[in-house]
């Protein structure tokens, strides 16, 4: 489902490679825990997986197609159709309501909107219910919520329309222990329900046990080893 081979990536203007990868293959439906301290190339790898960044050499193929073979606009459209992303914080547009934020991916992807049974708004409401957000908050502005609530909304947003790949970049780092456990349970449950592949990046190794596969980025990234 997601295959990276012989990747070399350097940020523009950098004098050495940030990421050098021999091979990484993630089959569909698997939950992957990617572990690594800050600065080891996690964000770069996520960018390459989601087709936001293009490696200088090597192949990155997602759902059988090379990201490189698509033009910029087509890559964005493909990402809109098949990928959901959760950041560590600031996941939501502050001036939109909670419901509008959850529906955002469907405004950019007709495919995902089409997968919503009963319409986008209905799917959004049902997701918000499943992530445990009280109904009174649904029409509130996104920046009126607490961090824990915002992260749950972010999960709902990433999952609407059942994207094939969900990328989570340290989503629990700004949550306390209780919230973190709730969030993990929620995320893994929803991904299983929608048969989505989950790539979860974090520096907190205690979470690794819940996942199918565990990868260590410093081991994978030969650029790091060389340095």
């Amino acid at each position, binding site marked *: 489902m997601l295959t990276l081979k012989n990747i070399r990536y350097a940020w523009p203007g950098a004098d050495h490679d940030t990421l050098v990868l021999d091979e990484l293959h993630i089959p569909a439906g698997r939950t992957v825990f990617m572990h690594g301290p800050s600065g080891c190339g996690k964000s770069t790898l996520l*960018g390459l997986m989601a087709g936001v960044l293009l490696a200088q050499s090597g192949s990155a193929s997602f759902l059988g197609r090379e990201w490189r073979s698509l033009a910029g606009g087509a890559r964005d459209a493909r990402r809109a159709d098949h990928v959901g992303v959760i950041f560590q914080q600031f996941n939501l547009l502050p001036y*939109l309501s909670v419901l509008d934020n959850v529906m955002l991916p469907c405004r950019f992807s007709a495919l995902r909107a089409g997968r919503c049974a009963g319409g986008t708004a209905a799917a959004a409401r049902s997701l918000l219910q499943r992530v445990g957000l009280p109904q009174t908050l649904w029409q509130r502005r996104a920046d009126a919520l607490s961090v824990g609530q915002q992260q749950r909304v972010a999960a709902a947003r990433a999952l609407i329309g059942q994207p094939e790949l969900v990328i989570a970049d340290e989503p629990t780092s700004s949550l306390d222990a209780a919230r973190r456990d709730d969030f993990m349970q929620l995320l893994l449950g929803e991904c299983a329900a929608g048969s989505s592949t989950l790539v979860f990046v974090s520096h907190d190794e205690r979470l690794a046990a819940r996942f199918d596969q565990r990868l260590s980025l410093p081991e994978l990234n030969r650029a790091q080893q060389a340095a």
Partner: protein
Amino acid sequence: MRALLSISLRSALNRRGTLMLVVLSIALATALLLSLERLRTDIRSSFSQAVSGTDLVVGARTGPVQLMLYAVFRVGGATNNISMDSVRAIAQHRAVAWVVPLSLGDSHRGHPVLGSSTDYFKHFAYGDKQPLVLAQGRPFAATLDGLYEAVIGAEVAQSLGYGLGQRITLSHGLAPSVGGDLASEHADKPFTVVGILARTGTPVDRTVHVSLQAIEAIHLDWAGGAPLPGMRIAPEFARKFDLEPKQVTAALVGLKSRAAVFNVQRFVANYEAEPLLAVLPGVALDELWAAVGLGEKALLAISALVALVSLASLVAVVLAGLNERRRELAVLRAVGAGPRHVLLLLAAEGALVTLAGALLGAAAAAAAVLAAGPWVQERFGISLAASAPTAAQWGLFAAVLCAGMLASLVPGWRAYRMSLADGLSPRT
């Protein structure tokens, strides 16, 4: 994309505190541009509507623009009078159909007084060859019995609250009598209002019309602009004097055929007994517009600069806020917006702010016209039409919008580059 437009709108509304100042400055610029254009058009049309059907205006040899200004628009003063003999000589020219003599120089509470013959009501036309119509009453009789009769324009009646039968006194000179300066008042010879003209939208509205004989009568015991000491002629006795006017200020001339206009003009210019000048109203107005044209262009240039400054401030405000919005842009990238969507988003925000400002400015300009219209009409005889926008105004409005959209591409482009560089992980 409708989705982008709606997100743009919400995003702009979110920062409406900061953007409000920009909206106001764009509104000011638009209001300036539109008001200037409206004023320009209305002044021109007011002036060209003020007299029609008159082929030549004859007066002392001053200048075409000055002659038009005092004879037709009752603005400014004549340097010299012309003798009634000359007017009669012109009337006898074979190509001339009618002549209406005009006598100016007095005023009533700031409104100019015009002395003329009864032919004035027959031959004077304005706008689209429309004749003068009386809303109430009748024209002055210009007979000895009806010597002290006046016909007032619609604006005089409205602003001073006069009706038929009102008694008024005239003042010498054109300045309004301040603090009741009785020395220059023809207080001993009051007039009665016998007619009120319907509104014309021309300087006729603010004029008080009396007969030429009446003008002679009130100046019988005056010399050099002041009453002769010790000599007071009562109103009834004035009738016994010869009240035929010897001098008038100007004359309106109508010809039997338009083709003869240059012949008659040359006849008047070559008239040996007195230095005279005959002008075609249209030609004189063109000269006037050429003279003020430079001033208009300067005002227009300044307004355009104001518009540019306000658009620059729009760009500055949006650019300044871009850094804080990097995370927001990353979220948009994550849900599938590409860099060009980000460009469109920012550009649309700028365009929406410009539109809001331009609409506000257009409304303000219209309101200003409504508010100031009556005052301008009263003071200058120019009617500001609160009518539909002209093509030139639409053009200015569109120019402001286009400029705003172009200017918004600057922060849009910046956001595009930032979004490309940041990808999903902005460095903030």
